[in-house]
């Protein structure tokens, strides 16, 4: 918490400091997060990668107030996160279970707003805007299970956008869709960041994806997890699935992140 006095952290939209979490107790106690620390500036696109078993989901749940950490804290706009904050929206990997099947697409998108007491006309406009932003304006009356996987994840993203958050936190959001859809959704979130100025924090196990999307890549070690490095990605704001990925800079960044992850994993094994 002493680090939260530094000027960089002070101005950050999201700051995670000294986060630690372990499961179980006694002999079966397993430390997942040791000391995780990073910040996200407003408008940032931050991706988090790490070897499998690095506790990425645990980190995300601690950060979003769904799980209480053993130590450390997360601050959003300067306020400590103790429960899910109103300025943060989550998109889960498992869209089919995250969307409620008994509600239509528009019902799902407006549900958090309705619960928050937003008036009906405003709910409607916000849902229309959000659905238009993800290209689903014509599917509002359908049920989520009548849509393809990629479209369902678009609905989940629309729900997050309509919520009006300052930061959108996504847990391996494209891990369950096919490669083509995945590329489309990656470009969709980049486009949303450009047009709406929302801050993105995306957890992934895919190094290509992490580099392609990010302004900065947070590389995690294996459990017990710390931040191994924060790699700045200076590929510019405009990205292209073919061109960007062919650039030497992209290739070298990708190798750099890959080496960091491998080294971190080997390092942990050696201990």
């Amino acid at each position, binding site marked *: 918490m002493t680090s939260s006095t530094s000027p960089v952290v002070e101005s950050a939209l999201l700051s995670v400091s000294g986060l630690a979490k372990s499961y179980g107790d006694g002999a079966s106690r397993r430390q997942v997060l040791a000391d995780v620390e990073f910040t996200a500036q407003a408008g940032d696109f931050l991706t988090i990668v790490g070897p499998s078993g690095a506790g990425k989901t645990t980190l995300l749940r601690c950060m*979003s*107030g*769904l799980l209480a950490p053993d130590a450390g804290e997360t601050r959003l706009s300067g306020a400590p996160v103790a*429960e*899910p904050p*109103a300025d*943060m*929206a*989550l998109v*889960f990997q*498992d869209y089919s*279970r*995250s969307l*409620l*099947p*008994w*509600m239509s697409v528009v019902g799902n998108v407006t*549900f*958090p707003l*309705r*619960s*928050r007491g937003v008036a009906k006309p405003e709910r409607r406009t916000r849902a229309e805007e959000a659905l238009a932003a993800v290209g689903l304006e014509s599917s509002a009356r*359908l*049920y989520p*299970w*009548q*849509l*393809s*996987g990629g479209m369902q994840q678009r609905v989940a993203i629309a*729900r997050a956008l309509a*919520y009006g958050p300052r930061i959108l936190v996504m847990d391996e959001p494209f891990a369950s869709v096919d490669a083509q859809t995945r590329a489309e959704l990656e470009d969709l979130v980049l486009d949303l960041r450009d047009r709406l100025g929302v801050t993105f924090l995306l957890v992934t196990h895919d190094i290509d994806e992490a580099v392609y999307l990010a302004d900065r890549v947070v590389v995690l070690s294996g459990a017990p997890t710390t931040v191994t490095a924060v790699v700045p990605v200076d590929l510019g704001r405009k990205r292209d699935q073919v061109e960007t990925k062919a650039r030497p800079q992209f290739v070298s960044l990708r190798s750099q992140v890959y080496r960091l992850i491998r080294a971190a994993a080997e390092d942990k094994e050696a201990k």
Partner: protein
Amino acid sequence: MTAATGTRARGVARRAGGVPGGARRVWAVKAGFVALLAAVWEAAVRFGDLGTFPAPTELCRALTDLVGDGEIGGPVLDTLTSWALGLLVSAAIGVPVGLVLGVSASAYRLCRFLLDFLRTIPSLALVPLAVLLYGSGLGSKMLLIVFTCVWPILLQTVYGVRDIDPVAAETCRSYRIRPSHRALFLILPSAAGYLATGVRIAAGVSLLISLSAEIIIPSPGIGQAITSAQLGGAIPAMYAWIAVAGVLGVLINLLFTRVERRALRWHPSQRQGGGR
């Protein structure tokens, strides 16, 4: 266990309704089969010796007599009243208690022994108590029905609440959904499939207990009509009343299957087309 039965029943219903042209042929075959059985039955009564067992034609005549002189109305109304009220009260108790026991693991542990004990008591063992408390009227039947029907509804509700998808629950938490909205839009719909099965089972049981109570107590209704017909030597009428009870059972089951299918259109077991 009960939930699995319900799912299977829904699956069968869906397959039969899938192809309209095929369905008509299936119905024709079914009707033909029933007609064949009736013919064999008629022949067996005419040419064999089945005691007091009536031929289908006799049964039909007795049934038309019941309907014709309006005798059918009173008992059917009595039975249906206790059936519906009993089911309603059972749901009014079973659903809220089930919700609480489903949400709170400690409450469930606390009540589990009592629950298992109470639901193994055969409700007919309570007939003397019911008569003592309420005489031979509606109250007695209600007591017996509610005591039997509350369990399937309550337990199915508990199972349903426990089956809430953790991802859906986490989503609701992350979007700060109010407790009342969680109950109404997350917990209740999640439990709806189980709940519908519980109510459908209870609906059948309610009719069963209604009739049993009417025969044993005896209390006004179809059950009593069956007994009186038998005691009065009106054997075809007795069979006619039994048939009335059977038809009622079939109609009730049909009604609840229909309602369930409409109300749970979104449920994976009910989805027709469009799902990918």
